[in-house]
């Protein structure tokens, strides 16, 4: 009896809240519907497909797809099968790629942000120019890099040859060097964003901290180590979490520079899954591999969402 009453009262509170905030909910409806249809329902559906025997025969009649448990996961991760071996390799490739691209990109960004934090003539123009790689569309950027990395007609090999670093034209876009070519292009495309964020962080550090340090006789390196870097840690953490997630899902740079099949040494999960699902028409295995990819990234995602604390700054 008591339970029923408290339940009824809580229901009426909920109803009252809904009525009270009716407008707020109405305003959310379009966004909610769209995100349900494009993000959440497909995601749940995708996780479901990963447990089904879903391929070209069953795509036209979903009810015929049988539940096969974790077979898709076993197939996707089994190093003995071709697809399993390639998937594991693609996970390794993207990890290696992410470590190199994120660390070098961050170093360049930090260096340039420190330079741009000083006052000099033309600073605004320089800041605008360094953002160009970030704002142009991915296709354009990576198509141009693909042209530059051509072995016979490309400008990269021309300089390497001129400087005596190579004797014969290197094949950049095929085989074991291709992942490095993509790394260079990706660093070029990605660091300006990091730099912009770090610069915003630097500009929020009060000058008197440095004045005090200078009076105490701290060198430039000591100032960086004990003032600048510690104060940039929050920005850095958020940046690294976000870019780790994005880098692990990398697709565009590999697809544009190396094609839909970048080859064993440069294949990444996104390109592999795309082929497995839409060329080989193994939707089930493809979905299972994407779920695995998402699970690997879930730690970073939770850390990121915790970091930005969406509730706090609401007035």
């Amino acid at each position, binding site marked *: 009896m008591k339970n029923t009453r408290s339940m009824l009262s809580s229901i009426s509170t909920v109803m009252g809240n809904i009525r009270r*905030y009716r*407008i*707020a*909910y109405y305003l*959310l409806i*379009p*966004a*909610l519907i*769209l995100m349900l249809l*494009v993000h*959440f329902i*497909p*995601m749940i559906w*995708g996780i479901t*497909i990963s447990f089904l025997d879903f391929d070209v025969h069953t*795509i*036209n009649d979903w009810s015929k797809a049988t539940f096969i448990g974790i077979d898709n996961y076993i197939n996707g991760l089994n190093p003995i099968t071709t697809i399993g071996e390639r998937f594991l390799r693609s996970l390794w490739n993207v990890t290696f790629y992410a470590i190199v691209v994120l660390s070098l990109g961050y170093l360049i960004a930090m260096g340039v942000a420190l330079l741009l934090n000083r006052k*000099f003539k033309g600073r605004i123009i*320089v800041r*605008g*120019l360094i*953002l*160009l*790689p970030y*704002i142009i*569309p*991915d*296709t354009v950027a990576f*198509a*141009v890099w693909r*042209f*530059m990395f051509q072995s016979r*007609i*490309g*400008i990269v090999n021309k300089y390497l*040859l001129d400087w005596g670093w190579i004797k014969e*034209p290197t094949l950049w876009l095929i085989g074991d060097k291709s992942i490095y070519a993509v790394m260079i292009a990706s660093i*070029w495309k990605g660091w300006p964003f990091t730099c912009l*964020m770090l610069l915003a962080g630097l500009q929020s550090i009060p000058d008197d901290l440095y004045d005090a340090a200078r009076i105490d006789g701290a060198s430039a390196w000591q100032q960086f180590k004990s003032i600048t870097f510690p104060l940039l840690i*929050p920005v850095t953490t*958020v940046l690294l979490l976000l870019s780790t*997630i994005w880098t692990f899902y990398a697709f565009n740079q590999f697809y*544009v520079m190396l094609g839909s099949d970048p080859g064993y040494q440069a294949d990444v*999960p*996104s390109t592999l*899954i*795309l082929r497995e699902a839409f060329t080989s028409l193994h939707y089930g295995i*493809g*979905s299972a591999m*994407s779920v695995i*990819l*998402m699970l690997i*990234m*879930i730690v*970073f995602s939770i850390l990121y*969402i915790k970091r*930005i*604390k*969406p509730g706090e700054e*609401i007035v």
Partner: protein
Amino acid sequence: MNTRIKKTIKRVFFYLTIALVLAWVLMPFFWMVSGSFKSTLEIQASDIKTPGQEPTWIPRRPTLENYLTVNKVVKIADYFKNSVIISLGTMIFCLIIAVLAGYSISRFKFPGRHPYTVAVLSTQMFPGILFLIPYAVMFIGVTRFTGIPMRDTYWGMIFTYTSFALPFSIWMLRGYFNTIPREIDEQAQIDGCNKIGALFRVIIPLAKPGLIAVGIYGFMMAWGEILFASVLTGKDTTTLAIGILRYITTQENRWGGMMAACVLTSLPVLAFFTLLQKHMISGLTAGALKE
């Protein structure tokens, strides 16, 4: 004297570093523009091993050939039109929907606001490839059961991209709305507006920089997206991001044409950027990672 020399050396070193950074940033752009003015013959015949035939920064015989024939083999003009329609559509729908949602979570303390915001942000953490597979399957299903074409239609793409641009746009606009003091809406309400009236008459005009930033973000997202476009567009809706790749086939490499198409594709983006740089930069830093 000594300190003055030291200072000058430091200065020179500083500007040299800046110059080096700019060279690294701008090199591909020069290569793109120079490539777009080289004849197919010049590009094909160039060879780093043959003296006198090396690829050069300045075209040996500059030509407009690539721009004049840019549409000849690859139907880049159609792709351009498709991209304009899809990107503008995305921009408009995204703005309308994100303004409503952003206003709602900025101004009302309704129950469920917090989980909703987390849900909005968490969509940024899914791999695109995970929902591409079921999404494509859903497109097929919708068409089968209702007869409404989804794949390879403008509205299917606008629908998709609007939804992609929403999470970030809502988050960004919420930030802008939060900076507008609530007293302003209250004043508007005293003056006889209801909450919705206050949004349109007072808040939207004040949040104009935010709206510009969000609009450009939506446009550029749709302009450059590759993964979903590679599966969901077809012969009627191919966007530039996919179309550009068609200059390189197994039979023929039209690098000159591709570079010309790249220049044309970058122009709208660069125009936005030059005109509205301030809004874009503030939008990027304010929205992306506000702590």
